[in-house]
């Protein structure tokens, strides 16, 4: 059997195991639904998420407002739907940034090696021992609030994580026969890294990255909840909960629905993660 056919068969097997794993399948369906809702938000939101209506302030859930209204009479359902866009955008873009920079850093450190390489990885290990939230708070306190800065902040926090992930495989792959042959025929270092090393680590990095989108969303929500992320009136799940906390006794729906949205999103991503782990770790296969 040719190499290619073997790979296709392996992939088919992975996919079949994944399909059989109900947890992962349910997680995928939920997250796809959430992505669809985020994309369709402008068309399916019953109201403008920023439109204030003093007459219908703090109304509990009803037919007109299925999730109630907030302190400015804005429709909570519409705000939750638009908040989905913000959360997913911040989660995906920040992880994308962390992935690009971190993977490049780890690959370079692994490929070039030497004292510089191991110094970088020492620093990475130190940074890794810090809670995501505390590093995030430090960077955001320096940069200030705003969506762009928030994406940058969370991206930076994930750089050491991707660097660590890319470093190990790079060390192993750079010793392979085909990398040596490439060097012998005069392929440049940059091209070796981008065309020979990177495609081989991409799979692992992408899987981890997908799962870390969940952590990034949690971080965004936490920072916005602390008032350090995206400021009102832009609706995000975190800042909606922040304003809702003050009215917990009179209008609990203000914090409950955005909170459930965060939980559902992160949970579905983690379900996929658990499923993937069952597939890739045959020891634990059911």
């Amino acid at each position, binding site marked *: 059997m040719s190499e290619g056919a073997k790979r296709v068969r392996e992939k088919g097997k992975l996919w079949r195991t994944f399909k059989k794993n109900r947890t992962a399948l349910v997680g995928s369906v939920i997250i796809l639904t959430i992505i669809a809702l985020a994309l369709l938000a402008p068309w399916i939101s019953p109201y403008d998420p920023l439109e204030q209506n003093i007459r219908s302030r703090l109304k509990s859930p009803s037919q007109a407002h299925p999730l109630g209204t907030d302190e400015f009479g804005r429709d909570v359902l519409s705000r939750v739907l638009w908040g989905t866009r913000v959360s997913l955008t911040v989660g995906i873009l920040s992880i994308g940034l962390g992935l690009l920079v971190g993977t490049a850093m780890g690959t370079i450190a692994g490929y070039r090696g030497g004292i510089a390489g191991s110094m970088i990885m020492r620093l990475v290990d130190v940074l890794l021992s810090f*809670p995501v939230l505390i590093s995030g708070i430090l960077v955001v306190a*320096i940069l200030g609030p705003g969506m762009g800065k928030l994406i940058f902040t969370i991206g930076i926090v994930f750089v050491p994580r991707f660097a660590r992930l890319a470093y190990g495989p790079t060390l192993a792959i750079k010793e392979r026969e085909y990398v040596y042959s490439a060097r012998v025929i005069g392929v440049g270092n940059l091209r070796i890294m981008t065309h020979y090393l990177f495609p081989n680590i991409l799979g692992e990095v992408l899987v981890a990255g997908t799962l870390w989108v969940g952590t990034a969303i949690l971080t965004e929500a936490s920072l916005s909840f602390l008032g350090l992320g995206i400021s009102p009136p832009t609706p995000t799940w975190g800042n909606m909960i922040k304003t809702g906390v003050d009215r917990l006794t009179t209008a609990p729906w203000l914090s409950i629905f955005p909170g459930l949205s965060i939980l559902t999103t992160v949970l579905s991503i983690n379900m996929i993660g658990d499923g993937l782990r069952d597939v890739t770790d045959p020891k634990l296969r059911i």
Partner: protein
Amino acid sequence: MIQFAIRRILISIPILLTVVTLIFFLMRTMPGGPAVAVLGDYASKETVEALEKQMGLDRPLLVQYAEFMGNLVRGDLGRSIINGRPIAPEVGRVLPYTLQLAATSLLMGIILGVPLGIFTALRRNAFSDYLGRTLSLAGVSIPAFFLGILLMLVFSVHLDLFPVMGAGNLWDLRDNLYHLVMPTLTLGLMMTAYITRTTRSSMLNVLQEEFVRTARAKGLRERIVIYGHALRNALIPVIAFVGVYAIILIGNSILVEIVFSRPGLGKMMIGAIKQRDYMTLQSVMVVYAGLVVFINLLVDLSYGWIDPRIKYE
């Protein structure tokens, strides 16, 4: 063991130095500098310069750094920009609250999580296993502040059992514990979820090892196989992960302190950011750094103690 411990303690020193240095220089990269951060963008050039002079920011960076490190070694964390009071005593006042919350939550996580993990591993794929897995997956997916809010709604607002905010008097045991229940429950449930998951998967791994098969083959009773042979080995990775989770816990304690208006390091830090008190922020960050490095040290030491193989690496 003593040699291992000394070596490990010595390694922590450069790590701590690196982090503290990083914090110092990061704080100096604030757009416009710390003085502008305090006074706002519209402050006149003269006021900014006056404050910079007063704070010693007009001196060369390396001089400032040397002074900062020198003070740190002597336990001096500087003075707050807002009220001019020394920061170290304030940290000393709030730190016990944070440590107390972290300790009780971690303890709750271990006491509940380890047995739950063993239980679900032994009943793999039974209904109770599915339920345990679903709940623990939800536990690691929920934001700490939202879990706190939900618990608050149930126990404080509806049942009126526990106070919504504050920490009570630290030295009055009854009052203190009464205020500690809700925050501990929040972080403790999260820790339980994390530890249950780790214990379960570690236990499943160990149960497939050769030595477990050998123990069964030679006719040992199942209880002895599980608690005498499997569990002891399964707990080794759990201890390493408890360290990782303790650090996640420290991060989440910030959110819980804010939700329950509980004094602590996190609340102090957020307050400092809101007031643009960059000196306090810097000092609290340094204290967090010390805490994280210390936890990592403890984990490594306990790891070396439990698994003698580690020491000879």
